[in-house]
């Protein structure tokens, strides 16, 4: 993109008149760009400045009384647990949906179906929380009981089963629904861009539709799917309201998905405690927010790096 657009400098040019309007406009445009960088730096700086009191405070003053590390660690575990569960559920589904919309659905309705999936992304997260609490959690209670009876040899299904269904398992599924449109939108885009020549060559040689997809589409779209999954992971890590409403979290650090004593997540813990927090409590919550910020920043940077790397070589065809 940049290579084709870069203006070639004119060899000999008379001195250009610098108009005031041009300078003001260019300056304000550039200023806005720099302002955005400052905001991002400001987010980090202000979070750190508010978190410092918690970082330097003696361990027994932190809520929980055992120091910042042991306050945040279970929350980090809960955050990762829910997000990874969501990712494991959502990624295969999203790839299937993207393939269905790009290569299986009738052409005439395919765009409409894609739009319907995008609607899932438009629904506010607090509404997902409502739905998870009122519909999904009760609906999953039988599965909780069944899993506790039959699968309790797995650490994640150790039980005892929660009677309300407001567990990490339900949260993971709600998060999966929320990140589904993100992953499938990106997967759809890259699958649609798979070179037509490769696809048609495969079909012309007698490949079935699945063989064509396996040979021409999936290798091309792989990095796009990975990047989409990473972006979905970033979203799931930072999701607040749905988790805060659905999960009835305890303080224990456990991998058990179906009991009623799951660790909470960083974001939902902030949302639940912040309105009533005072003094050092606020600083502690901001410190945990800083941890979340760093985690999501790392995940997103990795995702963008993968996307950009792909953009570099896909421009070649």
């Amino acid at each position: 993109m940049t290579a084709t657009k870069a203006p070639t400098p004119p060899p000999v040019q008379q001195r250009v008149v610098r108009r005031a309007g041009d300078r003001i406009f260019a300056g304000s445009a550039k200023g806005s760009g720099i302002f955005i960088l400052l905001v991002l730096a400001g987010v980090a700086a202000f979070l750190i400045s508010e978190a410092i009191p918690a970082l330097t405070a003696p361990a027994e003053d932190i809520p929980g009384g055992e120091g910042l590390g042991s306050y945040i660690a279970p929350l980090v575990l809960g955050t990762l647990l829910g997000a990874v569960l969501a990712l494991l559920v959502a990624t295969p589904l999203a790839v299937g949906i993207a393939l269905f919309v790009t290569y299986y659905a009738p052409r005439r309705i395919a765009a409409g179906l894609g739009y319907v999936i995008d609607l899932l992304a438009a629904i506010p997260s607090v509404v997902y929380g409502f739905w998870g609490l009122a519909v999904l959690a009760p609906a999953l209670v039988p599965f909780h009981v069944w899993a506790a009876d039959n699968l309790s040899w797995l650490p994640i299904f150790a039980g005892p089963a929660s009677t309300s269904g407001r567990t990490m398992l339900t949260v993971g599924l709600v998060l999966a629904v929320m990140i589904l449109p993100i992953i499938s939108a990106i997967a759809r885009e890259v699958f649609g861009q798979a070179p037509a020549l490769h696809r048609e060559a495969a079909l012309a040689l007698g490949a079935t539709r699945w063989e064509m997809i396996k040979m021409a589409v999936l290798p091309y779209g792989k990095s796009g799917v990975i990047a989409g999954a990473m972006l979905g992971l970033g979203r799931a890590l930072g999701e607040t309201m749905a988790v805060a409403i659905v999960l009835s979290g305890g303080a224990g650090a456990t991998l058990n998905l179906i009991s009623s004593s799951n660790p909470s997540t960083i974001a939902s813990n902030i949302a639940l405690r912040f309105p009533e927090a005072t003094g050092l409590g606020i600083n502690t919550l901001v410190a945990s927010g800083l941890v979340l910020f760093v985690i999501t920043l790392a995940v997103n940077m990795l995702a963008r790096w993968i996307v950009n790397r792909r953009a570099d070589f896909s421009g070649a065809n």
Partner: protein
Amino acid sequence: MSTSTQSPVRVAEEPSGPIRPQRKLPRYAGLGLYVAGLAAGALLAALTGSGIALAVVYGVVLGTLAVYVGSRAVEGTRKATDRLVTALVTTAFGIAMIPLVSLVYTVLDKGLARFDAQFFSNSMFRVVGEGGGAYHAILGTVIITAVTAVISVPIGLLTAIYLVEYGTGRLKKAITFFVDVMTGIPSIVAGLFAFALFTLLFGNDVRLGLMGAAALSVLMIPVVVRSCEEVLKLVPNELREASYALGVPKWRTIVKVVLPTAVAGLGTGITLAVARVIGETAPLLITVGLITGTNLNPFDGRMATLPVFAYYQLTQPGTDTQAFLDRAWTAALVLIILVMVLNVVARLISRFFAPKTGR
């Protein structure tokens, strides 16, 4: 790339032996087998006395198996695998439809109970039981979102203009990269940022509508930049060059040629960005809080907003629980309607203001 170009060749060599007669299932046999599998699943569920959900699961599994086995017996492995994947992929789409349909149905079902004039005309001032409404919260949401748009749109649009028209070298790369990274900031972190910023400026325990708008701006600006940048890139370079050739300064070219050409896409992108932030709850929860009365001044004190209103109605109901739950669901319904209207408006903008390129 080399693998994908070589592997078709390998497949092409396969039928070079004695040519087998193509055996195919009749046209609707696949569908018929699937339906038969569904019926068997329903029967199985009825025999074991399970609910509808399990019946559907049994049916889909058995239907998929029936298609695979039937096709494998008649058409061979390759065709059977193809049919299996078709069934799986379609099932994946069907699974994604379940939450969407269920969610919309639930919100409509529970939200219509209080979807009345009182909900839109009353606030919660001195309401402890039935009655009351979200007048204050709806207005609060509109005001805070408007302030957010006033902050975000100029900054986002100018940055997009910088990236497309002026930007070069390292600064452009840095801005592009960090705007992408910013789209992934968790909303609660944006809220904490606004809280930290205003606490440093105005002291402890400050709660302002403006704080919420600042937090939402952190979320909205990158979305505006991304969508505006994509749209501005689509403006043909010939238009700019024609303008320069007539001696028009660059800034006038941008204002009079580039932006009007792209106005449809810009409008769509900005509307979608508004739709993205209007339902945000977490940052408002920790920066704006909630009040029961009507406060329309974003520069003074707490305000009510629709998502936070819905959240507290649901999670902290008073003695008359049902009245609170009804209000919560109606607020959720109004929120969904707002977002959907914005999405439709965005589509209409792109349809009616599309540039007349003649292509």
